[in-house]
């Protein structure tokens, strides 16, 4: 319990603490920020050790009333799925802070406060068990990210920041509507409003389909933008290219997972019937995203943009796994979220390493870097291979399980999603090797690149831990999969029992008028 609260609030306290440090004491600011993030990581590890891996439900649950008239509360807790993502967040943050030490050259105090605030927000999203609390954290994230891109970003930062903000905002407004609408279904007996996710988990599946599907779509759109799913992905390349390295690392490493996490936690959990009904739609978008993202990545000459589009492709696998709605697919999706965070995080760090030294991201400005930066060559190689999905590294585990899930999914009932997506495996090799070969291999014949220094000790500290995790998950995935297994199994069980094509679902539990609506619907469609 204490560990969970520490994980959530320490970054927030840290952000405040930073405000009281003299803004010229740069070293103090940096060290404090790093120390806070490392302590938070420790707290999350303690939390993980206390976590009971055989338990499917939420643990360390805190339930405090907040706004009693709305039945909104400070309700938090973790289950197997959020546990892994929590660890990912606390691992990525120190790395992101460390990588900013040299690259951020103005308003340091505000910058690190923003990073810590961002961490608190993301952690909050993963642990919130209350729709209002969830929404607050969800929106809190926007502010620091908006500033990180808009203040410390590249040349076109304002455009990218505003685009990011408005894109996400458009989605979350719909989600707010859905949260309110959903709240009114809170208590079938009294019709009392609630924001308690634990209660809503049982209520959601009983909402008649014609209402449920709108709630589903509102949540899904908001999450799809965050993922981002084709065709609402165009904010991502701009945000990534303009954001400072740390921003990109956090964006790819953690923020995109908020979307996929939301899809599982809300869409699958609360609206299983609609999930069934719209599964094909989302799988088609995922498959398009996988292939489309890969092809567009192929066409990039800007390394950072290439990695950004690769995210569109890789995140497609996760959404595909989610809407397979079986254990293989969901487990694959969860582990793939972690994997993508690690490998794409590493890739952005590597791009940052190059940019720091040469201030260009154009592929043609590099070549033969291996001869001056061998350590970089190796770690960049590991990141690239993890992203390609080479067995033995982490990316393969998630990719294989999501594809296997999609192939065997009774809900999808067609092998084609998996088969088409598997072609992404070929394309990933095409664009990632293009990038790697272009940077690392060949003769180092450009005058500016002759004396590029190899990785500094700080850069090694950023990359090596992530690389170790890539191997760890790749070689021993069972230990990681085990953490989320009971939670996903419980979810799959729940979904299997409630199918969209079964029009009699949960009838005896419905509100009177909802049952009526359902009867009408049944009369309209006798099949």
């Amino acid at each position: 319990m204490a560990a969970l609260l520490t994980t959530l609030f320490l970054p927030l306290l840290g952000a405040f603490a930073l405000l009281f440090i003299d803004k010229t004491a740069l070293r103090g600011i940096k060290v404090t920020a790093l120390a806070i993030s490392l302590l938070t990581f420790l707290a999350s590890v303690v939390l993980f050790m206390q976590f009971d891996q055989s338990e499917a439900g939420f643990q360390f649950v805190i339930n405090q009333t907040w706004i009693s008239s709305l039945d909104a509360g400070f309700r938090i807790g973790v289950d197997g799925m959020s546990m892994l993502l929590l660890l990912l967040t606390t691992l990525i943050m120190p790395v992101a802070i460390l990588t900013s030490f040299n690259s951020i050259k103005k308003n340091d105090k505000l910058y690190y406060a923003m990073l810590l605030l961002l961490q608190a927000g993301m952690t909050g999203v993963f642990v919130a068990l209350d729709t209002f609390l969830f929404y607050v954290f969800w929106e809190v994230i926007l502010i620091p990210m908006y500033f990180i891109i808009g203040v410390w970003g590249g040349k076109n930062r304002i455009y990218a920041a505003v685009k990011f903000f408005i894109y996400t905002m458009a989605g979350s407004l719909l989600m707010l509507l859905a949260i309110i609408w959903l709240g009114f279904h809170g208590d079938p007996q009294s019709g009392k409003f609630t924001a308690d996710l634990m209660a809503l988990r049982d209520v959601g599946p009983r909402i008649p389909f014609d209402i449920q599907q709108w709630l589903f779509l509102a949540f899904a759109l908001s999450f799809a933008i965050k993922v981002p799913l084709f065709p609402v992905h165009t904010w991502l390349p701009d945000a990534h290219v303009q954001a400072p390295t740390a921003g990109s690392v956090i964006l790819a490493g953690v923020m995109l997972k908020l979307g996929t996490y939301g899809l599982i936690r809300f869409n699958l959990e609360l609206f299983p019937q609609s999930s069934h009904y719209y599964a094909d739609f989302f799988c088609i978008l995922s498959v398009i995203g996988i292939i489309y993202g890969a092809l567009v990545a192929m066409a990039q000459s800007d390394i950072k943009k290439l990695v950004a589009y690769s995210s569109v492709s890789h995140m497609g696998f996760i959404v595909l796994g989610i809407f397979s709605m079986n254990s293989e697919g969901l487990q694959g999706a969860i582990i793939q979220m972690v994997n993508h965070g690690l490998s794409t995080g590493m890739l952005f760090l590597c791009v940052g390493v190059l940019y720091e030294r040469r201030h260009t991201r154009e592929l043609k400005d590099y070549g033969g870097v291996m001869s001056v930066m061998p350590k970089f060559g190796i770690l960049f190689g590991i990141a690239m291979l993890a992203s390609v999905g080479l067995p033995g590294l982490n990316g393969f585990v998630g990719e294989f399980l999501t594809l296997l899930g999609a192939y065997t999914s009774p809900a999808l009932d067609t092998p084609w999603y998996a088969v088409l997506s598997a072609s992404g495996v070929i394309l990933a090799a095409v664009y990632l090797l293009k990038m790697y070969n272009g940077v690392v291999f060949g003769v180092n014949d450009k005058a500016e690149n002759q004396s590029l220094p190899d990785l500094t000790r700080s850069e090694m500290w950023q990359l090596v831990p992530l690389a170790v995790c890539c191997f760890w998950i790749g070689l021993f995935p069972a230990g990681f999969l085990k953490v989320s297994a009971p939670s996903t199994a419980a979810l799959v069980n729940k979904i299997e029992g409630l199918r969209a094509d079964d029009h009699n679902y949960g009838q005896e539990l419905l509100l009177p008028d909802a049952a009526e609506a359902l009867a009408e619907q049944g009369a309209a469609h006798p099949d």
Partner: protein
Amino acid sequence: MLELIPLVPFLPLVGFVVLGLFGSKLRNEQLIGWLGSGTVLLSFLLTLGIFFELLGMPPDARDGHVVQVYSWLAAGSFSVDIAYLVDPLSLVFTLIITGVGFLIHVYSIGYMHGDEGFFRFFAYLNLFIFMMLNLVLADNFLLTFLGWEGVGLASYLLIGFWYKRKFPGVGLVWTGDAARKAFIVNRVGDFGMLVAMFILFTLYGSLNYLELDAAGPTQAGELLTIATLLLFLGCCGKSAQIPLFVWLPDAMAGPTSVSALIHAATMVTSGIFLIARNATLFALSPITMEIVAIIGILTALLAATMGIFQNDIKKVLAYSTVSQLGFMFAALGVGAFTAAVFHVMTHAFFKACLFLGSGSVIHAMHEEQDIQKMGGLKKYMPSTYKTFLISSIAIAGIPPLAGFFSKDEILWYTFKNGGAFLGGMGGYLIWTIGALAALCTAFYMFRLVHLTFHGKERFDAAKVHPHESPATMTMPLWILAVLAALGGFLGYPHALGHFIPHFLHGWLDPVLAGGSGLWEQWVNGQRTEPAIIWEYFLMGASVLLALVGILLATRWYNKDQPRLASAEEGLPAYRILFNKYYIDELYQKLVVDPLDRFAEGFLFRVFDVKLVDGFVNGTASFIGRSAEVLRRLQTGVAQNYALVMLVGIIGVMFWLVLFRG
């Protein structure tokens, strides 16, 4: 002893990790070289021990020994372990990999002497051995796939090993581009493997070889045929068959000992291993078998013809490898699983020897690879010459050297079982194509021998001083040459009398009997078995054809002024064969360029930027412009507001009177 099998792949892994992490600090080449070789030698000795342990068992007790290491991956009903399967088949491959692998490691100590990436080279070689051993020792598809992709990675790293060197080709500039091409073409095959695994898992609920083998017949049908075809697509990638063979010739960009180990003796035979390992599943899919046989034999001929006019010593050998692999697939396709494995083994001996010999020559000629600029090397490097000659005779198929036995067994089976294919004509057709390929093989091999070692020196003796290579290089050559000469007796044909048993057949029988039995059953219903007299006749015919090839080559190339490219260019077939039927160009024009143009010119520049993002930005600017217009209403002048209000009130009144009244 058998339980020690995990150590066999583990030792080279330790070598890789130690060399990879600390290699740059070990400045001593001998230490690095022997460290890398030592791990492989230990693995070989360990395997040898296990081999004799198995040999001591009764035949039916030799297969199915599984040694569990740990549970790798599990989700839902899916689960696979890191577990090794010890049986006669995996041991044959393990012995080849560690045995030949060790020799090539030792050779590399001499060959890579003085290279700035010496430690890196041995680290990669050890990584390769580790991955290759996982591929063949795995007890399930997924672990094989780990090895399968892992050897692909090692191959990528080693083809691009000299990353600063140029390597011209279609769409290639650097050696790294050749490495990338190999990886990507292989990925096309891996796609097939992945989907095949999904199908097999849905059919059988397992990816475990023993379970698949046992349950095979229960699910025979269309889906199994598709699965086996997809597996074969994977094999086409890794083992360089039509249509995915294009990467192997370019893989020659790597150091020569890599070509010998990876691109001749071991990795490229993975496809043969995979089909032999799943003989039961393939035997249940006759359509797949027919396709495997046809693709195999066509590859054998096509690649052999491509080898005829090449002048790069390594490229000749590369095409030869593609061609020989084709023979192996032809064997698999007609159900001669043992013959295919037999040819894997003999080919490993003579082709490794040939590649290492060519490395020795290149070494002596100061990195020259063009055989037109060689000649007369016989007297400078006797050991290299003799071993090269022995291996050339072996690959040409002259008895009693190894190549004769294995190739002849394959040809005999294509005739014997081919009758089940191609409307009954398969036996004649496949045999004839195979025999033609064998003729070409004898021809281009002896063209190579003559141009390289015989005749007058065509190089500037003032600048180039050829010399015999050091013992670390010639010793492996001799050992391989002896194996290439004698290895064939492990598969002595019954037709030539029963005084030596066909060892390999008896040895592999416990593993392959199931598949072979099912296959025999099917084939016997499709064709009548040809009389035994044919076997003698065809054996004689194929030897005769090989001799014809050798004689033609000798006539044209074994003289002081041999025909060189300038003279050959006049030949009608020269252009097309020299340019490998323009297949690389064709792929470039039909696949690579259009895909690039589509991705860059349409998807990115038009669709993504103009259409999708254009819509987004369009929405934003529409709202912006609308606001611009609406903003004008907010003039701040009270009279205007009053006027609008008045108009509004009048409007409402009219509406009420006209429509509601």
